[in-house]
């Protein structure tokens, strides 16, 4: 193995000029990469690319569709035991005793663990665990564990917890929030922010029209189909953990620290992963230490232990998206020019902090001069939240973009025109018309709920019975995050075979395929001839797959490593061709002299000349450098159909327009965009984690009553990518997993308003809320 490289420092003297921006309106941009980095791919490369940007089926597809892909849940080791966690059955209590004697006496039980904590703050919190010879015996044993609680009063929901007399989740000196946030009752805040600008009081005084509204999002759970779990296997002091995780290195770090063992003795493997959406970024989960418990059980039993949570447990302790109560005040001139935005948010991440939602309000409508945000965290006796696909941003966009829609209605301005009036992003400015055209925006009801003109009237005929159609739109924002500790190794073997080796896991985004494409483009070979080695902490470190960082963190390292390997191969080929290495070019598996294609050798012939068995190039990702634009822009359009007699809402069509830099593989990129719209529509219409106000436990801890969008609810979904060159790294790539779910909730809600002329300000948009809103609108 080559040595771990030091991260290169930016070199002020190294300058490239890239043609950056949107195709058709590119502009030269000077960038200053780190020492040794290469010129970023830019707009001029689009026409030259052989593999980049071309749709390509994911390479693990055949394994997954035939049931051969081995997920963590599928791992089976000789002598393996089955573990089971036991969670608290009450939401707030003192644990007086835990009696495991009956469980220990049950034949087939091999190890038992109990918590040292005596305070229960949410139902589902870790209390005990068992390991036994079969899942059924483990379940029997779990039932035999007797926990004696002294129950305490609890608060189950955000608005309940904000009451001054609500039971306290924490003593005030134990708040899990920063010292810089104020505290009162169950409320911490406001959170310090750097987004404030101008003077909102002055801005509202200048306004010719104001709008104030309150909006509410409930808690959603991640509900990945593969629940959280690990297989823990000790061989002496060597520990191997097979983990269903988005971050194998975080599992290694967290478990090693909890167990007090050296990281070098811990190996974490994740070959395929059945969904995480942000809940699998830590060593275990935000509300459970099951990974550490599984390792302890395996040590006690002297046998490997597979420990997976069941669906009920998954809903309780593995994270969720915070609920949010948002109050938005907008001030504008009659022409739609914003003069002030005041955004307030109270969010509940259960027993955790970090329930902010101001991201979209901070970033959108950048031309507005006066902005203020206040955010509070509210504690409830519920499992701690975890990042969920653009954490806080879908909720926040529902608040701010619903309010913008209401403002447009009051002003009598087209919602798209109102956005354009206040838009600071050149990318989003270009996206509006693309999306409007794709959805047929001209069909929208000019007067919300008015069926005499617009969508239903002109395009699809007059209103049919009780069905009403409407169109809505909303914006979202996201960021170009990069994990600069990402490494990649490219190995060319003497037989010409190529390996890309990087520790990062593939969580189902098409990451494997994307890295093969990047390496192949640089080496001038076919992506199918590149073998990916990944998902193993013995490989060079890769990032945790959160924040939409994976592709744009690792791809630049892969490209640079491949470039270095290609240079070495060209030196070998130069000897064979009697040419200078600088005059060579690589394509289609051959290395040829520029301008004289007849003079060439194959990639394999060049590789055969190497001394030793392989060329290995290991690089650490360079720092993110100058970029054409700041945040990632996106906008979304929705068409819905509402039955005004039953209140049932059906999404008919959605269009998402997104910037993800230069897409590596549009096929898998667009799969993520389509998936985000579907998950977002599911949040908008169906999902709601319900805690019982009388007993504080979850009412719907399964997949029938915690309803997620199903095939019968499916709509027409269209993804349009607007490529933007130069995302600040040598591949010009950016992330896509999160941005397209930010606008969805608001886009659906705004379309419902356009259909029926009644505003739904609380999600999910269930039939009862539609009927109630209609009835209130009629009374008004």
């Amino acid at each position, binding site marked *: 193995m080559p040595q771990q490289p030091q991260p290169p420092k930016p070199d002020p003297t190294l300058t490239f000029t890239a043609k950056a921006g949107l195709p058709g309106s590119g502009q030269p941009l000077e960038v200053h990469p780190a020492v040794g980095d290469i010129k970023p791919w830019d707009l001029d490369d689009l026409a030259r690319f052989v593999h980049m940007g071309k749709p390509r089926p994911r390479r693990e*597809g055949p394994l997954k569709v*035939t049931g051969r892909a081995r997920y963590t*849940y599928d791992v089976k080791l000789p002598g393996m035991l089955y573990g089971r966690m036991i969670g608290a059955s009450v939401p707030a209590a003192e644990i007086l005793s835990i009696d495991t004697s009956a469980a220990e006496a049950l034949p087939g039980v091999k190890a038992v663990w109990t918590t040292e904590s005596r305070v229960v703050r949410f139902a589902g919190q870790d209390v005990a665990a068992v390991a036994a010879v079969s899942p059924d015996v483990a379940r029997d044993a779990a039932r035999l564990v007797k926990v004696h609680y002294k129950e305490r009063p609890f608060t189950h929901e955000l608005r309940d917890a904000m009451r001054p007399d609500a039971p306290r989740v924490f003593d005030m000196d134990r708040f899990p929030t920063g010292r810089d946030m104020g505290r009162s009752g169950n409320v911490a805040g406001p959170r310090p922010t750097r987004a404030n600008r101008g003077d909102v009081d002055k801005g509202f005084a200048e306004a010719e029209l104001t709008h104030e509204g309150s909006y509410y999002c409930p808690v959603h759970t991640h509900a990945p189909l593969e629940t959280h779990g690990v297989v823990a296997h000790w061989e002496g002091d060597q520990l191997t953990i097979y983990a269903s995780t988005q971050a194998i290195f975080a599992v290694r770090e967290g478990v090693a620290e909890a167990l007090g063992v050296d990281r070098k003795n811990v190996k974490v493997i994740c070959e395929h992963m059945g969904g995480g959406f942000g809940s699998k970024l830590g060593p275990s989960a935000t509300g459970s230490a099951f990974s550490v418990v599984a390792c302890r059980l395996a040590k006690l039993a002297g046998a490997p232990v597979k420990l997976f949570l069941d669906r009920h447990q998954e809903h309780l302790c593995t994270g969720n998206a915070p609920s949010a109560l948002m109050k938005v005040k907008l001030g504008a001139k009659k022409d739609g020019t914003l003069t002030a935005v005041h955004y307030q948010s109270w969010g509940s991440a259960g027993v955790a902090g970090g329930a902010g939602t101001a991201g979209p309000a901070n970033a959108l409508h950048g031309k507005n001069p006066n902005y203020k945000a206040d955010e509070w965290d509210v504690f409830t006796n519920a499992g701690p939240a975890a990042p969920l696909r653009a954490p806080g941003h879908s909720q926040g966009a529902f608040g701010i973009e619903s309010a913008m829609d209401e403002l447009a209605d009051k002003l009598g301005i087209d919602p798209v025109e109102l956005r354009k009036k206040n838009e600071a992003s050149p990318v989003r400015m270009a996206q509006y018309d693309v999306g409007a055209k794709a959805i047929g925006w001209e069909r929208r009801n000019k007067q919300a709920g008015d069926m005499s003109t617009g969508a239903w009237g002109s395009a699809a005929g007059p209103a049919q019975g009780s069905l009403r159609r409407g169109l809505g739109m909303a914006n979202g924002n996201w960021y170009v995050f990069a994990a600069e500790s990402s490494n990649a190794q490219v190995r060319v073997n003497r037989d010409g075979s190529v390996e890309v080796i990087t520790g990062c896991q593939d969580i189902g985004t098409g990451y494997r395929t994307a890295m093969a494409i990047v390496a192949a483009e640089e080496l001038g070979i076919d992506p199918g001839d590149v073998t990916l080695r990944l998902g193993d902490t013995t490989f060079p470190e890769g990032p945790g797959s959160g924040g939409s960082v994976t592709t744009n963190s690792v791809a630049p390292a892969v490209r640079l490593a491949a470039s270095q390997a290609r240079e070495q191969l060209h030196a070998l080929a130069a000897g064979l061709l009697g040419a200078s290495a600088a005059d060579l070019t690589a394509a289609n598996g051959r290395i040829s002299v520029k301008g004289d294609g007849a003079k060439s050798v194959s990639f394999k012939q060049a590789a055969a000349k190497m001394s030793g068995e392989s060329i290995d190039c290991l690089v650490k990702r360079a720092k993110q450098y100058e970029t054409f634009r700041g945040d990632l822009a996106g906008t979304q359009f929705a068409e819905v159909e509402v039955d005004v007699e039953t209140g049932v809402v059906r999404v008919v069509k959605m269009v998402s327009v997104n910037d993800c830099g230069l897409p590596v593989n549009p096929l898998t990129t667009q799969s993520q965009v389509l998936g985000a719209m579907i998950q977002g529509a599911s949040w908008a219409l169906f999902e709601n984690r319900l805690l019982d106000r009388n007993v504080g436990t979850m009412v719907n801890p399964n997949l029938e009553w915690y309803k997620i969008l199903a*095939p019968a609810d*499916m709509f027409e979904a269209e993804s349009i990518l607007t490529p933007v060159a130069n995302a600040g790294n040598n591949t010009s790539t950016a992330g896509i997993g999160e941005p397209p779910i930010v606008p969805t909730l608001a886009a659906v809600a705004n379309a419902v308003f356009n259909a029926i002329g009644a505003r739904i300000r609380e999600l999910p948009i269930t039939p009862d809320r539609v009927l109630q809103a209609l009835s209130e609108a009629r009374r008004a």
Partner: protein
Amino acid sequence: MARRPPPPDEGREQPSFSRRSFLKSAGVSAAATTVVGVAERAPAAPAVLGPDAVTLTLKVNGAPRTVTVEPRVTLLDALRNHLDLTGAKPVCERGGCGACTVLVDGAPIVSCLMLAADAEGHEITTVEGLGSPEKMSALQAAFVEKDALQCGFCTPGFVVAGTALLAQNPHPSRAEIKAGLAGNLCRCGTYGRIFEAVEAASRASAGKRS
């Protein structure tokens, strides 16, 4: 759409206790309040399996396979934990998501709700039996081609349900596809491309016949 398994006493003689015959004889109210005393209240108590492990012969993907499991072990657990066929996935374990769908005598069944003992004497086909990475079925190949998968954990269930749908209705409309797959859930949001894959496989089979 994947179905719950038929009551075990329908179709053939069962050695195990039948919930349906008990309900018939004892009445629903008794069943709802207690399960204690089942044996004495049911007339002509049937032969009882267990509680110890029993040896079963299951015909899986065309070959007889022997497993020794407790009678309470589900078909899903028998396949995954005893026969190393891990294509069917445990996701909700109450018949709500379709990820564990297998074919039982050609019909899509959620294997988490069927006891392995009740699967004896039936033809069981898992996703592994429909094709291999080297030789995929037309539907499996269409899933790959259309990128009708992301994390892939729901994919085997959709492939099995889609296979059953196409066997019954080789040229389903979009509405029929939605209905045929209505028992399966995907969290990554791949439904649209799954529908396209079923349609592509349907077209491919039409092309083959003509």
